[in-house]
């Protein structure tokens, strides 16, 4: 029979055993040394389902220290149920302090957003990545995409952009816009909206990407040049809400959520929950803004 104590045994600090942590740290270092390159790693199973942030968790748990202050956001919100679930798990496994304040956090795990507020040298942003392979849409086989990256053979990706433009009049890439990192590797910035893509370039913080199910880690070190793919005459553009302002803060120049009320009326609200809190209670936090061409 099972001894009950087996299920109540204390877990290692940050859940992962030290050997796994060391392995993941080595892979993170490799990823930092080769910006944008996808490094395969062991990706052990977690008590969180595949596709629900295991890769981000691996990275966060491998690097978190006892003095870290931790923040989790999902789709820009600290309050999303999955963000709460991950936060509780990390809290339980590390005892680290958590926060919703972007500026206060030293380690932020995110799904699909970069906070609006500028991140600094003191901070690391860990992305949860569902599909790390930017070439998957044009080439389904891993054996081929790996050699395409090795040979910097990105013609199919470019042609797919060209074809979208020819067919629809714009590049039609939503979230997960393809970027070139440090002039070399094409990379999926996890599906962050285009609004966030310019913030990947020349950032002060370190960006780490964990794709648990696909078992890949990649990184953008601080002050790395990250360029969204664009043509000279068909430019990358971020989402545009025109003159629409946030219904709660009256602010513009932030990623807005489209919210429907019970009567089907619609309003737009600043997506980044901590940024919205700060807009409503004090001075606007520092932001890096990108202006669409023309």
């Amino acid at each position, binding site marked *: *029979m*099972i001894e009950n104590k087996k299920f109540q045994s204390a*877990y290692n600090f940050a859940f992962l055993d030290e050997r796994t942590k060391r392995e993941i740290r080595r892979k993170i270092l490799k990823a930092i040394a080769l910006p944008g390159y996808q490094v*395969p*790693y*062991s*990706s*052990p*199973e977690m*008590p969180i*389902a*595949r*596709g*629900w942030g295991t890769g981000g968790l691996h990275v966060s748990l491998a690097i978190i220290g006892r003095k870290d202050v931790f923040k989790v956001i*999902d*789709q*820009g*919100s*600290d*309050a999303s*149920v999955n963000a*709460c*679930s991950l*936060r*509780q798990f990390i809290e339980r496994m590390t005892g680290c302090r958590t926060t*919703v304040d972007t500026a206060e956090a030293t380690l932020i795990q995110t*799904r*699909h957003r970069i906070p609006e507020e500028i991140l600094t040298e003191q901070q690391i942003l860990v992305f949860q990545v*569902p599909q790390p392979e930017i070439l998957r849409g044009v080439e389904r*086989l*891993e*054996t081929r995409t790996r050699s395409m990256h090795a040979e910097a053979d990105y013609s199919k990706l470019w042609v797919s952009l060209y074809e979208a433009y020819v067919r*629809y*009049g*714009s590049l*039609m*890439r*939503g*979230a*997960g816009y393809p970027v070139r990192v440090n002039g070399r590797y094409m990379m999926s910035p996890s*599906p*962050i*909206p285009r609004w966030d893509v310019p913030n990947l370039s020349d950032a002060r913080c370190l960006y780490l990407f964990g794709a648990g*199910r696909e*078992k*890949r880690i990649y990184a953008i070190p601080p002050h790395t040049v990250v360029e969204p793919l664009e043509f000279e005459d068909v430019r990358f553009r971020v*989402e*545009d*809400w*025109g*003159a*629409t302002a946030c219904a709660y803060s009256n602010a513009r120049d932030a*990623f*807005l*959520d*489209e919210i429907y009320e019970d009567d089907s009326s619609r309003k737009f609200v600043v*997506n980044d*929950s*901590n940024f919205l*809190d700060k807009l409503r209670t004090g001075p606007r936090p520092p932001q890096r803004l990108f202006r669409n061409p023309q």
Partner: protein
Amino acid sequence: MGYVAVKGGQEAIANAAELVEYYRLRAATPPIEIEQIRTQMRLLVDKIMGEGSLYAPDHAALALKQNEGDVFEAAFTMRAYRATLKREYYSEVLVTRDMLIRRRISAAFRDIPGGQILGPTRDYTHRLFQPELTTESMPSIEEFLQRIDAHIDPAKLTAIPKFGKVIDVLRAEGLLLVRDEGDRRVVDVTREAIKFPAPRSAALQMMARAETGGLMCLGYSTMRGFAAGGHGTVGELRVGDVAVQVKDPRGRVRYLGRITVTECEMVNSSKGSGKKGSLPLLSVGYGLCFGQNETKAICMGMLDNSLREPNEANPANSQEFTLYHTEGVESYGFTNHLKLPHYVTFQSGLDNLREAMQRTLASYAGLTVESPAK
């Protein structure tokens, strides 16, 4: 949206967890005991141990209980637990030739050395309901067991026969294809990410851990013409116990215990070695999984054959397709992640679509359409 909202999310999670517990128990029936699940849901426990990649019947039974019988969740719970266990040893090679046989059949020959042993199977049981089970009781169970016990001759229990392998007959005659297996490394797919083309050891490990239904889907596809090789024949299927041994630090082989496994050798015709004059010799595909899970072992055997004849046109001839997509815990997790909010990514796509729609409409008769967002 600050602390209060976060608190709300946390409360919602806690309430949902409690509510689902309520749904498990609200009929107020007597609790199912772990031992009952382990013994009376034997085949389900075997399946969970295989897919959970952990030979631990009690844990599998608990996983089934706490997940109300959801097999995907149960296998997932096993895997998550397994990942926290220290890996002290790799076992010595299991010697399935020395298996304590419970059941052993071959479809290739009418009689085989050692004989066909039907063993415990429902293969030939008519699938009719057994209403008497609805009134089963301890006395009725004991009566049944006594009846069975009466048939057992204790004198014979000490003689443990060994059975030769059916494929040895074929091998002795030179009918088996000797493949150049290429990469013979034994990798550990739980310790490093699989890379393609994967060595056979990785493919077999992935399939031994794969979700049974997914494996069956692709195995079945090979028989319906979606792979080279065709129908295949069960050379031998055996179910029984094998010893697990490890080497201690001083190099001595130590016996740890026995596990039940299902092993299958699927025999298929091959394309031959490709050398001039080579014959379409028989290829042996190998399947092995925890417990008694014959469907899985057979499908694994079929796919082991088809994967060694790569052809991207067929899912079952493609390592990438087969191994990635039959991985139950990963495919289950990712399909269910669709329930997570995606409103940021969705908004980004909507922005594109609305803009494109505006442009298209504007191109007809100079109309302009007001984008609701602008």
